[in-house]
C-alpha cells in the first residue's frame, strides 16, 4: 500500500478508535454520577476478554452484525441509506423458515437453498424501495423505514395466521415447523459458535473484492462518488441504484440466517430482533469498509456478551448499550471533523511539494 493510502487509512481508523475512547470516558462519567464504580466496571468488562467462552460468544453475536453492516455499507457506497435491513431480514426469515421446512434435500444443498431463498426474499423487499426511488424518486430513507413497519406487520400476520405450529408445551414460544436437520448449519464450537461466522467473513471478503477490485465495483463507487461524472461515461445511475438496493437487500436477507439455521431452526416472533438496526451502527463505526466492519462487529458483539458479567458487580449491563450509542454518535461527529482537517492537510502538503519542485 502506498504511503498516502496508508496515511488516509490510519486517519480513518483513528477517528473510530478516538470515538471508542470518548465513549469510554463519557460512560465512566455516567457511571460515576449514578453511583457506580467505573474502574470496577471497566476491569470486569475488559477482563472478560480473556474468557474463551466470552470470545466465542462475541464472535457468535458479531456474525449477523457483520452481514448486516455489509448490507448497509453497500447502500452507502451509492449514497443510499438502507434503513430497511430489519424488515428485509424479517421477510427473509419467515420465507426461509417456511420454504426450508417444506422440502427435504441433502445437507449442503438444503443449506444452499435456504441461503438463496433468504437472499432472494430480502432482495425482493429492498427492491420495492429501489424501484420506488428509480421510478418515482421516493427518498429511500422514508420508503425503507415504512417498509420496515409493513414487513413486520405482514410477517407477524402471516406467521400468526398461516405458519405457526402450536407446541404441546405451553411455555414454549410458538414457531413455524422446524427445519429438518439437513438445514441446520453446523457449529464450530458446539452450541456456542456457529459456522455462519465463516459465511459472514466470506461475505466481507467478497464485498471487498467486488467493490474495490472489479470493474463493476469501480462503476458503483464512481456512481456514488459523482453521479454526473459516471453518467457521462455511460453508467446508468438508475440501474446502479436498483442494483445497489437489490444487493443490499440480498445481504440483509442473510442476516437472520445464523439465528435461523444455526440456533433456533424455526421462525418465532422475536427471532434475530434488532440485528438489522444494530448493523447500521456497526457500519458507521467501521466507516463502511469490510476491515472496519469486521473489527466493529466484534467490538459490538463483545460489548453485548461481556456486559452480562457486569450484573454480578451490581452494575446494570445496559451501560454497554449506552456505550454503543455514544460510540456511534461520537464516531460520526469525530469523523467529519477529522476528515475536514485531513483534507486541508493533504491540500497544504500537495501545494508545498509543488512549491519545492518549482523553486
Amino acid at each position, binding site marked *: 500500500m502506498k504511503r498516502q493510502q496508508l496515511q488516509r487509512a490510519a486517519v480513518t481508523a483513528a477517528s473510530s478508535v478516538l470515538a471508542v475512547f470518548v465513549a469510554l470516558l463519557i460512560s465512566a462519567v455516567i457511571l460515576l454520577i449514578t453511583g457506580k464504580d467505573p474502574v470496577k466496571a471497566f476491569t470486569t468488562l475488559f477482563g472478560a476478554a480473556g474468557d474463551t467462552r466470552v470470545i466465542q460468544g462475541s464472535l457468535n453475536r458479531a456474525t449477523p452484525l457483520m452481514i448486516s453492516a455489509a448490507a448497509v455499507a453497500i447502500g452507502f457506497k451509492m449514497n443510499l441509506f438502507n434503513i430497511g435491513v430489519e424488515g428485509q431480514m424479517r421477510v427473509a426469515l419467515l420465507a426461509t423458515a417456511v420454504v426450508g421446512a417444506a422440502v427435504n434435500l441433502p445437507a449442503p444443498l438444503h443449506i444452499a437453498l435456504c441461503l438463496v431463498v433468504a437472499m432472494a426474499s430480502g432482495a425482493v423487499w429492498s427492491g420495492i424501495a429501489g424501484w420506488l426511488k428509480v421510478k418515482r424518486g421516493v427518498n429511500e430513507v422514508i420508503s425503507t423505514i415504512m417498509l420496515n413497519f409493513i414487513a413486520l406487520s405482514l410477517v407477524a400476520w402471516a406467521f400468526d395466521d398461516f405458519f405457526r405450529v402450536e407446541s404441546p408445551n405451553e411455555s414454549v414460544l410458538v414457531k413455524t415447523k422446524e427445519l429438518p436437520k439437513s438445514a441446520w448449519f453446523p457449529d464450530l464450537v458446539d452450541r456456542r459458535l456457529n459456522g455462519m461466522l465463516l459465511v459472514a467473513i466470506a461475505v466481507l471478503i467478497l464485498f471487498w473484492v467486488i467493490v474495490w477490485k*472489479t470493474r463493476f465495483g469501480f462503476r458503483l463507487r464512481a456512481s456514488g*462518488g459523482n453521479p454526473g461524472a459516471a453518467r457521462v461515461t455511460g453508467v446508468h445511475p438508475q440501474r446502479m441504484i436498483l442494483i445497489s438496493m437489490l444487493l443490499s437487500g440480498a445481504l440483509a436477507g442473510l442476516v437472520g440466517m445464523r439465528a435461523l439455521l444455526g440456533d433456533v431452526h424455526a421462525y418465532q416472533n422475536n427471532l434475530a430482533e434488532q440485528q438489522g438496526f444494530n448493523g447500521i451502527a456497526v457500519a458507521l463505526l467501521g466507516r463502511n469498509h469490510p476491515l472496519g466492519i469486521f473489527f466493529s462487529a466484534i467490538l459490538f458483539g463483545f460489548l453485548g456478551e461481556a456486559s452480562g458479567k457486569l450484573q454480578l458487580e451490581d452494575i446494570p449491563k445496559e451501560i454497554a448499550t449506552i456505550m454503543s450509542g455514544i460510540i456511534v454518535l461520537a464516531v460520526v461527529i469525530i469523523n467529519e471533523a477529522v476528515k475536514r482537517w485531513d*483534507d486541508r492537510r493533504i491540500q497544504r502538503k500537495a501545494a508545498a511539494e509543488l512549491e519545492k519542485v518549482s523553486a
Partner: protein
Amino acid sequence: MSTTTEAGALAVELSGITKTFPGVIANKDVDLRVRAGTIHAIVGENGAGKSTLMKTLYGMHQPDEGTIRVDGRDVTFRSPTDAIAVGIGMVHQHFKLADNLTVLENVILGNEPVGSRGRLRLDDARRDIRGLMDALNVDFDLDAPVASLGVGQRQRVEILKVLYRGAKILILDEPTAVLVPQEVEELFATLKRLVSEGRTVIFISHKLDEVLTYCDEITVIRQGLTVAHTTPRAVDRRGLAELMVGSDLPNPAGRTSHVGATPVLEVHDVAVAGASPGAKLALESISFTVHDGEVVGIAGVEGNGQFELCEAILGLAPMVSGSVHIAGRDLTLAGTRERITSGLSYIPFDRHREGLLLDAPLWENTLLGREDESDLSSGPFISRRRAEAESRRIIDRFGVRTPSEQVPAFALSGGNQQKLVVGREMSTAPKILLAAHPTRGVDVGAQAAIWDELRSARDAGLGVLLISADLEELIGLSDRILVMFDGRITAELDPGRATPEILGTHMTGEVQGVAQ
C-alpha cells in the same frame, strides 16, 4: 437618498491586499481605488482573482495582508454583517433568493422590521420598498412569488434587497452573465440611476464590450495582480484584451489545413425535446459534419443549446428526431458506452460536476470511463498497477503538477484538474473529441499547453468539436466556426475573417443566417 460623500472622494480603497488559499495565490498586493458616484468595472479572465477580491471587500473572508478603507475610514470586516453595516452590499452571481417566498419576504429576509412584541411591521416594509422602487423606476408586485419571476427580475429583487439594507456601495458579480441583451440595457439603466443618487457601483465582468460602454473607470486584474487602472476613453477593446491576457493574442493566419475527407462525426437534423412537456425544443434541425483533422468551433452565449448538443452526441438527451453517426457508424440509438468505445471522447463543461471524482486518487480518475479498456483491466478486475502507470504517463505528458498519482483530485488546483481531464480524454485514441470549454479556469501557461496538444492531435487526424465562450480560442483553433443561437445553428464563419465583434453580433442573434 443621497450620500454626503463628495464626488471625487474615494468610496472604497483597497491597498496591498494579499490572499492565498492552499496551493494558489489568489490576490497579491492588489490595489483598488473606486471613486464615489461612479460605475467602476473590475475586469479580468476567469480565475484572475476578481471574485476573491470582492469577497474580501464584502467581508466573506479576511485578507492575509493589506488594508481596506471605506469613505476614508479604515475598516476590518469579520463577516458580511460588518460590511453591510458600513454600507456595502453585494449581489452574487448565483442569486440567493428563496423560491417559496414572495418578493417582499425575500427583500426583508434577515432584516425584518419588528415592532414591539416582535410582530412584523410589513406595512412599514412595503412603504420603504415602494420608495426604493420609485427611485429606481421599477415596479414589482411585492406579493408575487419569486419562483414566478424571470432572471432579470430576480436580479432586480437582489438589488432591492441590497438597497433595503441601506447599501451605498454595491458590488455586482458578473451581473450580465445570465441576461439577454435587452435585460443588460435595463440593468445598466438602473445602475446609472443609482449612481446619479450618489451611490457607487462596482461590477465584475469579463465582457469587454459592456465594460467599455457602460462604466466610468476600469481596473484590470491578471493572475492576482492589478495590472492597470484606466478609463473607457483611454483604451480600446483590443488594448483592454491585451491587458487582461497579457500577451499577444493568437494569430489564426498562416497555418496549414489538415482537414481530411473522412467524416468522424455526422449530426443530421437533430432535434432535442425541451425541458418540460410542451416547452420549446431545446435543439432544432442541427446538422453538421466534422472530418478527421478538422476542428469545428461552436460559438454561442451559454444556454443556447450547446449543452444539449453535447448530451445528444453522447446519447443522453431526449432526441426527438435526427441521427448521429460516429466514425461512420450510425449510433443514434446506441448507449453512451458504445459511443465512447467507437471513438468518442468528451471534455465536460464542468469538470467538478461531470469530469472528476474529487475524493478519489488521480489514478482512479484516470480510470473513469476507461475501466473497460483491455489494457487497463484484466477480466472482471481493474488493474491498479496499469492504471497508475497510465496516469503517470498522462501527468508527465500534459504537465499536471502534482506530487504523485496517489493524491486525491480535490488537492489539485483547478488548472491541473482540467489538464488531467483533457489528458485522460485524449489518451483513449479517440477519433472525435467533444471539447466543451477545454481551457476554462486554466492559467495562461496551461492554456497554451492544452492548445498545443489539441493542435498536434488534430494534425495527426483527430476531429474536434470545440465549444467555447473564449472567442480568441475559437478563432485561434478552429477550421470552421458555427454559431449557435436559440437552439439552432445560425451561421457558419471562416475564422480567418471573423473578428470578436462579428462573432459577437451573431452570437447575440442580431444577425442570423449570414455566412461569411
